[in-house]
């Protein structure tokens, strides 16, 4: 258990902000950047399934990334909260 102090509060917020930017970066990449390359990506066809890759990323790939990323974010933020003694009691 860490004592609450302004320094501790600030450190907790710095870690939280850092995590926020990392996740926003991933969100931006899979929400936008990758779809800007849809035309070259569509030249690649996923073997067996038959999807053009650019189409697949928009219709499924990015969605899967978003879901997985939200579960990871919940875990990572909770770890930060615990580290700085800011987490709620279980």
């Amino acid at each position, binding site marked *: 258990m860490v004592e609450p102090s302004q320094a501790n509060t600030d450190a907790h917020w710095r870690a939280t902000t850092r995590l*926020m930017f990392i996740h*926003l970066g991933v969100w931006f990449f899979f*929400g*936008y950047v990758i779809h800007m390359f*849809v035309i070259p990506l*569509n030249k690649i066809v996923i073997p067996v399934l038959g999807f053009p890759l650019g189409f697949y990323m928009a219709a499924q790939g990015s969605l899967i990334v978003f879901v997985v990323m939200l579960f990871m974010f*919940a875990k990572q933020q909770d770890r930060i909260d615990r580290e700085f003694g800011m987490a*709620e009691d279980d």
Partner: protein
Amino acid sequence: MATQTTTSADAFYKQLGRMYGTYTGGFLAFIVLLALLEQVGVPNKILGYLFVGFTIVVYAVIGVMTRTAQVSEYYVAGRRVPAFYNGMATGADWMSAASFVGMAGTLFLLGYDGIAWVLGWTGGFVLVSILIGPYLRKFGAYTVPDFLAFRFGGNVARFLGVIVLVCCSFTYVTAQVYGTGLIASRFLGMSFEIAVFAGLAGILLCSMLGGMRAVTWTQIAQYIVLIVAYLTPIIILSTMKYGIPIPELTYGAAIQEITAREGQMLKDNLAVLCTVESCPAGSLKPHIEPFINYSPLNFFGIIFCMMVGTASLPHILMRYFTTPSVREARQSVAWSLFFIFLLYFSAPAYAAFSKLEVYTNIIGRDVTAIRPWLFTWGELGLIQICGKNAASLDAAIAACKAIAGHPGVVRLQDFVINTDVIVLSTPEIAGLPYVISGLVAAGGLAAALSTADGLLLAIANALSHDIYYKMLDPKAPTIRRLTVARVLLFLVAVIAAYLASTKPADILAMVGWAFSLAMAGNFPALVMGVWWKRATTTGAIAGIIAGFGLCLFYLVVSRYFPGFGVKYAGMTSLLNPVTGKPVIADLAAAMAAPNAMESWPTLAHPLANKVGWFNLNNINCGLLGMPLGFLVIYVVSLMTKEPSKEMQAFIDEIRKPRGRTVLEEKV
């Protein structure tokens, strides 16, 4: 509040899994029972009524059983809804009639470009979890304007928050009531107006007595119905076609077949390709080719506006006020997206299977050999062949004969389908028994009802809690507060139903507008309120007015006062995404037409929705409003005095999950 938790309530929460497990089993057994009834010859119409009637009765029973007389139960379900179940409830809250019925049709029509909606309506939950939701939960608000009022110095910010909330939620709820009317009238043969008011009764029974608490437990039940209904037909279809019951994997093969068939159709002169030189209505737009329905700016604009709009819509944010902890609020956003994902990643499969059916079994066939499933929808005016409603085989043959030089086989340009038909007709295309069609109708109704419940509650709560209790009568006793809340809920619902029964032309577009309006009005103030201590009251108020005002101006002018926009606001014609030519070929001539300066023109007006700035569709007006909102908050905040030490300490407090909620309501 939570201190009043009794042992029986604890037992209730422990039994949730068993209760909803039994409910799901019961629902599946009910489907089997109806399938048996169909086999012994019970007519379709009765099956449809049984399906819809039974599910609505179940929702109503849950709504009545979970009635409450406690304020915190009414507004935030006592903050005791576990993350997993709140995720399901949010899924139902989120997925509207448009998602259930319309999305697959949009993907059918627009191909790759339609996926902008799928991406936009999922990725926003990332922003909810990272930037806003958990912090509002820690704050302990009952409504979104509650937070704005506390953080930005009182009732001006609260009132602005209510205006934004009502503007974006009211049109949205009207669209849901409209959706219930549409589904009920198509499947049960009721008249549209009666169906609207029948739907209204269903909505009120779920929400009026129990507020958030009742809406939560019915939404979970509605989610189960809607997801079973959405996935069942497409899983059966995938198994029939490819032998694998996972349509999300098998539709890759369907897409390859579509692309091959598109080439064949062009070779056989059955379709005209949409090219840079000319792209007439009805021409072929290849399914996987990007940026032929939306320009790249509008494609990414839709994704961005829908995502940021998701994170700003009050009826979504308030669902995360109901979890027991900040930690569970975050987990709950993840579960929400998971449950939403199950539907959204299946929608493109519907589109692909339907398109393949149309391209192989309708286009290129002799008009006399059209498959009969189509005529049910033709009668309703939802499918046209050769420019006439395909009500029967004779009607279709006659219509095509009337076209000079028609080859006698159906060409792509001869075939027009309403997007709503794609999901609703899939069971018939696959030749499945009627019971599956009834299931789909029940699912569509569940989607519309659950979203309407959430939206109505958001509006009524803002009016009763923010306007009545916080601004008009802060000393009102609990009983009166809850009575006012219920009366307002009833009134808003009746007005929405009345409006829906008049079938307003813009109703479906308005759902899209709601996202941009919420984004421009709420997002900058909410994000800066949590993430920037220096944001001041004056800054936030100026930012909300500027951002929301600009977005509203752009929408209203380009839709309702386009002549004014061209003449005084420097608007020009939007461009065709394929040819790059202006949509209005001769703007000067259109402006010279006698009705160009007329206000409130109909959708068919040559200028309506077709003018704007920077070739930006008006649905993306948030793209203008939100950056302006951020800029104004930033600049004005720096010009005004820094927020007080107490306010800064308060912001520190909402950033820490540990500890009591900042705002403590008296019970």
